[in-house]
């Protein structure tokens, strides 16, 4: 609608408005539901009067004005009731409120100061309106809103049948949480820790449910308050943590290294050096590539697109300098030994490289030779 710089600026504005509109759409206020219902009701009233369509902005404005009218009636009626030393409103309070609001437009008998409220002009207008207007029920069934959640309160001392620990605490107050939920162990000897853990496991086993729920609630509250999940997991609380871990895996304490057996990725043989030396370093050379070529054909049920080894050999040989990089590993070998060593040939699943169709006897032989030289034959590690 502007004589701007041209279509680019209009387009840009359109996109920006679009984004803003999308952002606005996402931001739903707390009153969105009520406003929507008000819009529908006002639209129905307008339709009943003869309007066939409306501008969205006009409908929004009229609905907003209608809502404000309701609030204004309520406010004035409430203030009149309070003025008369009452907390609950009366029909006369409402009529007085209506008179106040109608005084702008005017109603019959407005100038009469001492008229009775029940005979007020607004009431007569209302009666007339109800008599004339056709009844248009609201289009939808509205639930009672806002919905109030049922809060489960903690039981008090009296309700739980317990006596408060001290005299100064009355029995109608809610119970203290279970000591396991908040007790943390300070630095102690290992023996003490062990005995403590044993004692605690016994305790926990006895009060299985009682411990679990408050602990979970406590941890959930911690999470809700923004603190990290599973933050208090100390050595002495192993039993408690275990209980928590059983119920909620996300709250379980992190696993120590070596606790759980995890299949590690298998490096393709071409990244391996001299087989005897692969514990500590990986050196890649031309010759290795050549010798290992034939063994790059595993016996796998899963196959991908085949690739001819000759081409790869050509690709690899043409003008490529020999690569030498050493990876220093202080840790265990990358090929993890999980079961007793087998002399038989195991399948090798490649992390990189192509899988090939078909089995060649030559390949088998090459691999046999290769792996017989190793101390630790590879395990089957299907990833």
């Amino acid at each position, binding site marked *: 609608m502007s004589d701007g710089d041209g279509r680019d600026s209009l387009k840009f504005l359109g996109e920006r408005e679009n984004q803003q509109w999308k952002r606005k759409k996402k931001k739903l206020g707390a009153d969105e539901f009520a406003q929507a219902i008000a819009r529908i009701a006002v639209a129905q*009233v307008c339709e009943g009067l003869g309007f066939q369509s409306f501008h969205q902005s006009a409908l929004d404005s009229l609905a907003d004005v209608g809502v404000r*009218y309701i609030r204004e009636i309520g406010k004035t009626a409430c203030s009149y009731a309070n003025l008369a030393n009452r907390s609950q409103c009366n029909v006369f309070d409402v009529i007085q409120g209506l008179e106040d609001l109608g005084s702008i437009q005017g109603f019959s008998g407005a100038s009469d100061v001492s008229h009775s409220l*029940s005979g007020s002009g607004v009431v007569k207008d209302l009666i007339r309106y109800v008599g004339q207007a056709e009844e248009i029920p609201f289009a939808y069934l509205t639930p009672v809103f806002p919905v109030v959640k049922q809060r489960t309160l903690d039981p008090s001392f009296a309700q739980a049948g317990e006596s408060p620990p001290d005299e100064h605490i009355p029995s109608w107050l809610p119970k203290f949480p279970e000591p396991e939920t908040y007790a943390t162990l300070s630095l102690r000897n290992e023996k003490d820790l062990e005995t403590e853990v044993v004692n605690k496991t016994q305790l926990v086993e006895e009060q299985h449910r009682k411990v679990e729920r408050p602990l979970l609630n406590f941890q959930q509250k911690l999470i809700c308050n923004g603190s990290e999940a599973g933050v208090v997991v100390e050595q002495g609380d192993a039993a408690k943590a275990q209980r928590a871990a059983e119920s909620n895996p996300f709250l379980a304490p992190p696993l120590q290294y070596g606790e759980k057996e995890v299949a590690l990725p298998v490096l393709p043989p071409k990244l391996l050096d001299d087989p005897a030396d692969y514990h500590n370093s990986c050196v890649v050379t031309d010759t290795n590539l050549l010798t290992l070529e034939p063994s790059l054909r595993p016996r796998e049920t899963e196959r991908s697109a085949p690739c001819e080894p000759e081409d790869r050999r050509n690709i690899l040989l043409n003008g490529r300098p020999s690569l030498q990089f050493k990876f220093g590993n202080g840790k265990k070998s990358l090929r993890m030994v999980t079961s007793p060593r087998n002399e038989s040939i195991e399948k090798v699943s490649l992390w990189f490289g192509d899988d090939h169709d078909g089995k060649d006897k030559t390949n088998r032989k090459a691999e046999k030779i290769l792996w017989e030289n190793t101390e630790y034959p590879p395990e089957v590690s299907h990833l």
Partner: protein
Amino acid sequence: MNGQTSHQQSKDGRHDDDAALTEFLASLMDYTPTIPDELVEHYLSKIGFQCPDIRLTRLVAVATQKFIADVATDALQQCKARQSAVVKDKRDKQQKDKRLILTMEDLSRALREYGVNVKHQEYFADSPSVGLDSVSETSDN
């Protein structure tokens, strides 16, 4: 004596008014206002209006409905007046503009009578410098 009769009459009148009001409130339970009760109760409770009697909420709902109906009627009259004014110029528009549309302009005129000032943006500009180009051109020239 005359004062007594007039007093008597006013008393009767008051009784009639009270009776009419009571009857009206009772009839409200039969009449379902377009504005749902839950909505009215929600806003009234928000504002501090306390009353367990559902007839009062119905009363408020009916009053609001009447208010909106009055405003909409005025807007409708404005719209029809504008259409009839246009029709006098061209006969073609008579067939096209039969649709009655609630526009912001009509609404703001209708609401002004009720003391509600609703002003709508007439147009939107891309940037603050829009429209100033012509000014700068003339100043250069």
